[in-house]
């Protein structure tokens, strides 16, 4: 499993692609929004939590189809499926690798972009916490979507249509945490609910994803 993780990470680093792309997209969103909305600090501070979360979510979406598509095309997914490791484990490791190259960097740069969007000081800590707890769910759910469409040619748009509604609860709770944190309110409830979604998704969804992969590899 560790081997697979390092292999995926190395591929992601060397092929370029997803790693920098998601970050660049996130940066662009954070730069474009003030240009479109106008530079008033009060307005920006109000929409910053939502914009940052939506930006992170879309940046995550960009690289989803790479989770399985390349391995499916060159046949290494078949090898992984016949290997002694359960397919559920393969899915979990690949989701983890996806999170390490997209979710984690997004979480780390988010405070910098928060400055651009004039996020109130109290919000930074909660922004990092909520992204750190929420983006794993985005990767796991995204891996499920990617497993569904892996056999479809040019499934990118379909993938977004399938995955976006599944992202709704995570987005709502995640943005709510930052919003409340920035306003200095208690954040316990949405934070716990979001962590619950992440844990539940990480525990159960790999089984659904593996089932979908088995169907697609049949």
């Amino acid at each position, binding site marked *: 499993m560790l081997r697979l993780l390092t292999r995926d990470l190395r591929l992601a680093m060397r092929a370029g692609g997803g790693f920098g792309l998601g970050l660049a997209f996130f940066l662009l969103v954070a730069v474009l929004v003030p240009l479109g909305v106008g530079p008033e600090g009060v307005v920006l501070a109000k929409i910053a939590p939502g914009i940052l979360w939506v930006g992170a979510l879309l940046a995550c979406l960009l690289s989803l189809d790479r989770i399985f598509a390349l391995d499916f095309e060159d046949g290494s997914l078949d090898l992984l499926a016949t290997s002694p490791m359960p397919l559920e484990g393969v899915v979990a490791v690949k989701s983890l690798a996806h999170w390490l190259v997209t979710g984690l960097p997004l979480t780390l740069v988010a405070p910098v972009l928060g400055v651009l969007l004039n996020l109130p000081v109290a919000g930074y800590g909660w922004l990092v916490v909520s992204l750190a707890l929420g983006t794993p769910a985005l990767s796991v759910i995204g891996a499920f979507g990617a497993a569904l469409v892996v*056999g479809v040619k040019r499934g990118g748009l379909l993938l977004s249509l399938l995955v976006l509604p*599944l992202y*709704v609860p995570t987005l*709502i709770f995640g943005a*709510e945490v930052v919003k409340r944190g920035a306003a200095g309110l208690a954040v316990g409830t949405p934070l716990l609910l979001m962590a619950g979604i992440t844990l539940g998704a990480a525990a159960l969804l790999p089984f659904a994803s593996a089932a*979908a992969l088995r169907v697609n590899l*049949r």
Partner: protein
Amino acid sequence: MSIWEYANPKKFMQTSAAVLPWLAGLSALCVAVGLVWGFFLTPDDYRQGSTVKIIYLHVPSAMMAINAWAMMLVTSLIWLVRRHHVSALAAKAAAPVGLTFTVIALVTGAFWGQPMWGTWWAWDPRLTSFLILTLFYLGYIALWQAVENPDTAADLTAVLCIVGSVFAGLSRYAVLFWNQGLHQGASLSLDKEENVADVFWVPLVVCIAGFVLLFLTLVLVRTRTEVRARRLAALLARERLA
């Protein structure tokens, strides 16, 4: 004699052919009686005027929009567990019907909301969760369209339906988080003495019964079409081999 007999396509086609005219007639009758009664023979509400009558379309279609997804969930589970093709085809047939009901509920709601709330749309929990339900229906139908092998498509959409149900439920409770919103609570429930004044209530129940029957009729017709399409594909494949 068990319910699984109807999983046999031949038996299903025979039974549904016999039932269908009755079902269609009854649903046409119920919908016509319920709508005419509701639209023309009930008094106007003293504050809402005649806009209150949108309820006869809005409530039944909203109920069926959710129930259609529940039916798809059940048939998807049956397909995954027992591999009955009719079950998978019924789920496929129900999706566009459910989507239509969802859209009807949203549009009639907008027509009612415009004069009453002064807005076509509000990000109210109920409205938002219906919009999300629409997206789930769209994704489900798109996945059926995109996958070529019918068995693969049936498997994938069944898995999507199960996972989607969980997340649709989560979204329903997540949007409650904002506030109670504009939409009133449920007007109908079984444990109350009187829900709405009887003059409005009786035609509404007739309408709901009509929409349930209408849904069953449409799903049966569409499932029969799917079964026939499947047979046709099999015939064509056989001719190509010969």
